[in-house]
Each structure stands twice: as structure tokens, then as C-alpha cells.
């Protein structure tokens, strides 16, 4: 690990003042950043510890929530009202990593974790445009069974590893940010970027900008939601494909739906095509299958990950079928 200085932020403004120093990185639970620093993939000159910042989960009368950026993953999944209103979020968090890591990891850190692409990690032996822009991508011709089938580019085929973020994308969360020049809010689905020609740019965060909170808007049918994760082993593994979905049905017709996919793209993939197709349609397996096919129509398989396309379609249908059965 390279040497660095360590500073503890007292509040968000203190953090952005400290974070304005070039080479600074914010430290949440450290579960990803400390590992990357040990591998010298990340080499910050200063760590600004923001794990002491807002730990509050504020439930508002309208059914929305404001979740402090430093809230631990376990605390969010454990929150009784979150579990009742957004079971997909609690289940997504519970599916990620291990009990120990969920106790350490913060909400903002979960959002800002880096891809687990092994070529990104292998800074001595592999080429990676995300780690070293312009040097090429060894994953495209390499071991890429876990990699993206949607929204990838010739520069990068990495996936975003988070489960929690898939639920946040489906729930239309809003990211609250604090910069040195003021605060702003960004829709969660606009927060992460597709790789295009610049996979080193992963979010819309400006230099030194800090995530301070996540807002979860009320969703009347959020209670009829779930998260399903398909992986190589039953637990403690990254997703091959995952689905976060909420479904509202009236008289056998889909009146509203939210769905996002994990494990398939550089960012949590909000399935807007599928959602648009399903609204107003009968809640039947035939319609679920047609919408799932349409959502995956632009998928671009690599040599060894084409299985993700039918797997995603089947998982979508299984999840929607399950939610439709519970409701009817």
C-alpha cells in the first residue's frame, strides 16, 4: 500500500474542504477502497474518513425516506419501515457480500465501489482502459463470462457489482451531493455512466464532490417487490444476473411496474423498454416473456457470456410471475 495521510471529516462541509486537496479519496467502510489500495490499483495521497457522517434513516409522512450516506448496509436492510415498504431493497442488500462486509460498507461506498473485473485489478499483468485510459481492454478477448451484455463499448465490458444499486435504480432514488460550491441532486439512474470511450469515468461526480444522502420516493406498490440474484454459488458471490422488480396489478392488468437488472451492464440497468411495454397489458407469462425479450433485444454477447441473455429473460419472467401470483 502506498503512503497516504488520514483525515477525519467532522461534517459534510468539512469533508468537501478536506476532499478538495488533490489526490484525496473519501473513505466509507473501506471494504473496496482498502482492498484496491493494497493492490495499488488505487493510490490516494489522502483519505478523508466520512464514515462518521450522517447515519440517519429519516422516514417522512408521505412514505419517502432520506438515507444518510454513511448508513451501513446492514442498518438499511434492517430498518423495519424500509423492509415493509421496499422489500426489494432489503433483499438486494441482504444478497450482497457477507454479513461482515454489510456491517462495514456504507450506502455511498456501495454505490461507488469499483468493478471486480480481474483485468482491472491486475495492474501489473493486464491492460485496462478503466485503470489506465487508452491502453486497451484484455477482458474483451479474455475471461469475460461475468461481463456485460448491455451498454458495453469497445473500450470496456465491465459490470457494476452492486446489488443494492439495482434496487435503487428500480426505485427512482435520488442522490444528494455536496460540492465545494454547493449542493445538488441527481436521479440515481443518471448517477452512474455507461463506459463509451471513457470507462475511467464511472459517475457524474465532480472532483471532490461528496454523496451525502439517498432519497427514496414513496412507491405505493413498493411492498409488492422483490430482488432475485442468480450466481455461481448459493451465497457470497457476485451476480451473473439479478432482477429488482415491483409490480402493481388491478383486475389482472399491469397498472405499474418498476424493474432493473444487475450483473449485465456497467451500471444498474433500468428496464424502461420492458416497463413501457407492460403497463396496461395483462399480467401474464406471455406478456412478461415478450417484454423481457424486448428489453434484451439490443444485448451484445461476448464469446463466453451469451448465456446471460436468456438467463436474464427467464429471471425477469420468474420474478414477475412470482409478484403477480402473490398479488392475485
Amino acid at each position, binding site marked *: *500500500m502506498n503512503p497516504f495521510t488520514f483525515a477525519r471529516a467532522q461534517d459534510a462541509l468539512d469533508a468537501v474542504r478536506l476532499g478538495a486537496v488533490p489526490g484525496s479519496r473519501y473513505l466509507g467502510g473501506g471494504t473496496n477502497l482498502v482492498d484496491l489500495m493494497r493492490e495499488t490499483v488505487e493510490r490516494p495521497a489522502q483519505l478523508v474518513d466520512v464514515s462518521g457522517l450522517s447515519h440517519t434513516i429519516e422516514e417522512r409522512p408521505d412514505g419517502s425516506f432520506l438515507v444518510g450516506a454513511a448508513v451501513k448496509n446492514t442498518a438499511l436492510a434492517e430498518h423495519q419501515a424500509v423492509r415493509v415498504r421496499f422489500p426489494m431493497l432489503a433483499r438486494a442488500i441482504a444478497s450482497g457480500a457477507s454479513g*461482515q*462486509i454489510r*456491517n*462495514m460498507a456504507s450506502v455511498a461506498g456501495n454505490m461507488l465501489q469499483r468493478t471486480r473485473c480481474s483485468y482491472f485489478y491486475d495492474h501489473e499483468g493486464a491492460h485496462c482502459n478503466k485503470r489506465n485510459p487508452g491502453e486497451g481492454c484484455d477482458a474483451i478477448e479474455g475471461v469475460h463470462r461475468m461481463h456485460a451484455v448491455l451498454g458495453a463499448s469497445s473500450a470496456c465490458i465491465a459490470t457494476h457489482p452492486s446489488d443494492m444499486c439495482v434496487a435503487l435504480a428500480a426505485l427512482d432514488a435520488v442522490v444528494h451531493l455536496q460540492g465545494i460550491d454547493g449542493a445538488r441532486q441527481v436521479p440515481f439512474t443518471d448517477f452512474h455512466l455507461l463506459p463509451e470511450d471513457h470507462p475511467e469515468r464511472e459517475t457524474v461526480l465532480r472532483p471532490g464532490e461528496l454523496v451525502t444522502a439517498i432519497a427514496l420516493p414513496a412507491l405505493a406498490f413498493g411492498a409488492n417487490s422483490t430482488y432475485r440474484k442468480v450466481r455461481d454459488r448459493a451465497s*457470497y458471490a457476485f451476480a451473473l444476473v439479478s432482477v429488482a422488480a415491483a409490480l402493481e396489478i388491478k383486475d389482472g392488468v399491469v397498472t405499474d411496474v418498476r424493474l432493473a437488472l444487475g450483473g449485465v451492464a456497467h451500471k444498474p440497468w433500468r428496464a424502461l423498454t420492458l416497463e413501457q411495454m407492460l403497463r396496461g397489458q395483462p399480467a401474464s407469462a406471455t406478456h412478461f416473456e415478450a417484454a423481457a425479450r424486448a428489453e434484451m433485444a439490443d444485448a451484445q454477447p461476448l464469446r463466453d457470456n451469451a448465456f446471460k441473455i436468456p438467463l436474464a429473460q427467464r429471471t425477469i419472467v420468474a420474478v414477475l410471475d412470482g409478484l403477480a401470483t402473490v398479488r392475485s
Partner: protein
Amino acid sequence: MPNTITINGNAVALPDDPRVSLLDFLREHLHLTGTKKGCDQGACGACTVLLDGEQRILSCLALAVQYQGRAITSVEGLAHEGELHPLQQSFIEHDGFQCGYCTPGQLCSALGMEAELRRGVPSYVTQDMASESVAFSEEEVRERMSGNLCRCGAYNGIVAAVTEHHVHLHGAAQAREAS
């Protein structure tokens, strides 16, 4: 706040170098070698310790300086006045280990898991996320302990030991209900 951390009840000075992980601090600085370094990258759980009494964390991914003023319990802090912790005794009785390398992490993790169950923290296999309590079951134990690998494969013994300890704490009724 003084520049100290409490380890098994004793306040000790934190390292000057912020690069020192909590794991290396325990093992190399304090010579508490019960906590094990397996992968040093958060994949195996051998380095699990308890934070502030009952929160299980991975000491390999923790920078010691980040835990200033906090209390850490390592496996050395589990026994009390020469008596093994009941969970340690259960591990012996149920052959919850072979080589023993993962055991300190398994023990701390299982104690943290027990606290999470008590609070009603749901897991991925919990049927009803909205339920305020979680029914104890083998499936829950296996899911919740998945962050602790055992290369000897002593998992059946570990599950038996953790189950016995749970019964010891809560009585047999709940465990029977789950089986």
C-alpha cells in the same frame, strides 16, 4: 478523543502509520495471533472480529486508525476467567473444525450473527422481509455464515455447534420449530 482503541477491554495506542490494517495491528503490533490472515482481501472471513461487542467485521479490510475510540473483541477476548465461551465449547463438542485456521473467524462471526438474529435482521433466505423476527433454521445459518470459508469442509460441525449455542441461549423450542 485520545488516539487509542480498546482491544479485549484494554485501551491501546493506535499505530502512527494509517496503512496498518486492524488485522496486522492485532497480529503484528499486539501479538494477538488468534485472529488469522487468510486471504487479506475480504473473501474468506478468517480475520473476523467483533466491533463494539457484537458487530462482526473483517479486520483485514479495516484500517486500524478508522476505529479510534471503538472497542474490538478478538477470539482471545471470548473466554472468561479461564472458562471457554459456550460457543467455543460447542465447536469442540461438535467437531466444528479440523485444522482450526478459520475457527477464530467462525466464532466471532457466529456471535455477530446471533446478535443480528436477535435484532431480526433479515437475510437473503428470509421468506418475509417485513417480519420483525427471524425463525432460526439451518438454511438461515448457512446463508448468514457464508462469509466464513472452511477449507477443511467442517461446515456440518460448524452448523451443529452454532445451532447448539443458539439453543443454549434461547431454549430448545425455537430450534425444534425450525427443524
